[in-house]
């Protein structure tokens, strides 16, 4: 499992970095006790590489049936303009809804893993959205996401409590963290899943590959937890149940500041006026060349505001200066998958379609009945955006009053 070789010089550097206080110096030699979770923090700091973890042996000893429960990694996000304020990233709730179904199918608990500088009563929200239990690790070093710090904590909590399934958002944070954890504990990880199910007690992880031209079902039959990152905006959020509570289990973890090996010098959040990001928007109103001028394009802003959405643009519209590049949807822009995607005056070049075809309901308005956008749209409207969009705005404004 974990071994300390003769190379150990008894420097003691590993003792303070152990998050679980599992190392003692005995006769100038590091000795691990049963609190060791094989998180690997000591391996990282050992100056003479005297500590090794034998993963194979560790995994051979795994009794798969002792792994129980479906876990969801809780991603926190900064609240714009509120200093160090944080809130739960909405994709976490999607994962809880998906995880709830898996847990029910398996007859097991749904647990949320919350790693935070300070819990702000989040167990309430997590409970209402389906969690039975919240594993809470609080520490000042968790003030912002850091790969080394967070992966050490997650690995430790997994090794202590042995979940059967663990889900992460396929966000930048989740895709940074999950492979690190998987590599460390030698378990399977499937990226960017769009569907999850249980078959014969195993997690079936469905994901697109080759740019969405192919779907694959992936299993991790011989390792636990079965881990997956899940694409945001795909899983439906179930109605919260007010008053439903989750038990909080506190995880004692100490984090040495030397674990943090990458330093953030500067961070900027580029929020839309309304504070919404196009990747996360529930509604995206997109415009293309068909809008003709920057002034005309502005009507999409009005429509979007009425629907609580975010404006997107085709590459042509960006190239013509109708909208900033940060709003470009497509291969060389952003990939979006909102619940509603309204394409106005967009012909539907391949490079645009790959960036929006995962949207739930696509409505396209175009003058040309043969525009390729109608091949991906669920609802096609042949007509002039310059006439139809103002009518939409007018009606919605009337309703608002």
């Amino acid at each position: 499992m974990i071994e300390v070789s003769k190379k150990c010089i008894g420097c003691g550097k590993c003792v303070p970095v152990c998050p679980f206080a599992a190392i003692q110096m005995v006769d100038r030699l590091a000795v691990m006790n049963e609190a060791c979770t094989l998180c690997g923090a000591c391996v990282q700091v050992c100056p003479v590489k005297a500590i090794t973890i034998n993963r194979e042996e560790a995994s051979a000893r795994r009794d798969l049936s002792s792994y129980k429960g479906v876990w969801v990694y809780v991603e926190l996000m900064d609240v714009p303009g509120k200093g160090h304020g944080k809130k739960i990233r909405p994709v976490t709730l999607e994962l809880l809804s998906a995880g709830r179904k898996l847990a029910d199918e398996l007859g097991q608990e749904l647990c949320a893993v919350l790693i935070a500088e300070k819990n702000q009563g989040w167990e309430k929200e997590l409970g209402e959205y389906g969690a039975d239990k919240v594993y809470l690790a609080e520490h000042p070093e968790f003030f912002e996401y850091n790969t080394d710090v967070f992966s050490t904590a997650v690995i430790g909590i997994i090794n202590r409590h042995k979940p059967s399934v663990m889900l992460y958002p396929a966000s930048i944070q989740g895709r940074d963290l999950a492979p690190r954890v998987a590599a460390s504990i030698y378990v399977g990880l499937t990226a960017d899943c769009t569907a999850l199910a249980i078959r014969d007690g195993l997690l079936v992880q469905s994901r697109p590959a080759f740019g969405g031209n192919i779907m694959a079902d992936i299993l991790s039959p011989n390792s636990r937890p079965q881990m997956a990152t899940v694409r945001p905006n795909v899983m439906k959020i179930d109605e919260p149940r007010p008053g439903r509570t989750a038990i909080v289990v506190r995880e004692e973890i100490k984090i040495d500041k030397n674990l943090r090996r990458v330093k953030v010098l500067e961070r900027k959040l580029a929020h839309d006026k309304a504070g919404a990001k196009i990747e996360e928007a529930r509604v995206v109103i997109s415009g293309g060349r068909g809008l003709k001028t920057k002034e005309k394009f502005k009507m999409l802003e009005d429509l979007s505001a009425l629907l609580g959405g975010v404006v997107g643009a085709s590459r042509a519209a960006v190239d013509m200066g109708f909208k900033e590049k940060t709003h470009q949807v497509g291969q060389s822009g952003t990939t979006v998958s909102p619940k509603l995607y309204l394409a106005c005056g967009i012909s539907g070049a391949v490079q645009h379609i790959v960036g929006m075809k995962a949207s739930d309901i696509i409505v396209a308005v175009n003058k040309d009945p043969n525009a390729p956008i109608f091949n991906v749209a669920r609802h096609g409207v042949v007509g002039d955006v310059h006439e139809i969009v103002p009518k939409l705005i007018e009606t919605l404004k009337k309703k608002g009053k």
Partner: protein
Amino acid sequence: MNIVVCVKQVPDSTEVKINPETGHLIRAGVPSIINPYDHAALENALKLKKTYGGRVTLISMGPPQARSVVQMGLALGADEGVLLSDMAFAGSDTWSTSYALAKGIAKIGKTDAIFCGMQAIDGDTAQTGPGIAQQLGIPQVTFCEHVDIDGKNFIARRHIDGGHEIVEARPPVLFTILVPKEFSPRCPSFPEIHGSVKKPYHVWTADDIGAEKHYLGLKGSPTQVSRIYPPPQREKAEMFSGSAHEAAEHILAIMRKGQFIAE
């Protein structure tokens, strides 16, 4: 600075289709290219080499024909190339692949930075880079727009959800690189291609890198592909045409039904 760049040979993904009857990938006639993200990573590494000196070594894993992407990288300016090629690697998932690449990189010798593409366009997993970093026990900086050097440290600008950050990392460190918005892959010139043939190139097997075989290939991979299939076909769009007023009413009805607006 010694930089290792990981490159992967990929089919030009937009061309790959599936045979609906056999369920197999149709790869015939699909051109193989250097993964564009890896190409961007290589260009970033070469830029650092040009400015600050140092050595750029390429590493790839794949069948013998994957030599072409290593050769391409050498022609673009890398100094040395390594291809990990062995039947034992066949069928490796991201875990096993990062294990093998980490072993190969360890054999290359002292490395200050590893550059990987953020993801490969055939798998889109973005898992191999962080996997290598963990296997080597070094820090990672993922989703980088670009990486520069400041004194002894690296400075990277990276994407985060909802913005970007500038980070500093001491070597050794692994970066995963995004394709810049205005990236047009450079093609090597004829003299560059000609010169690249003389550059050191090695093919290493699992034994050469000291990889334990039970971690490799289909058997060593914790994930298994149980089934591949074509994505569900979208039904044809429900088309509507009428006056602007009718069209607007039609769209509003769709929005009402989807509960995007109140009844």
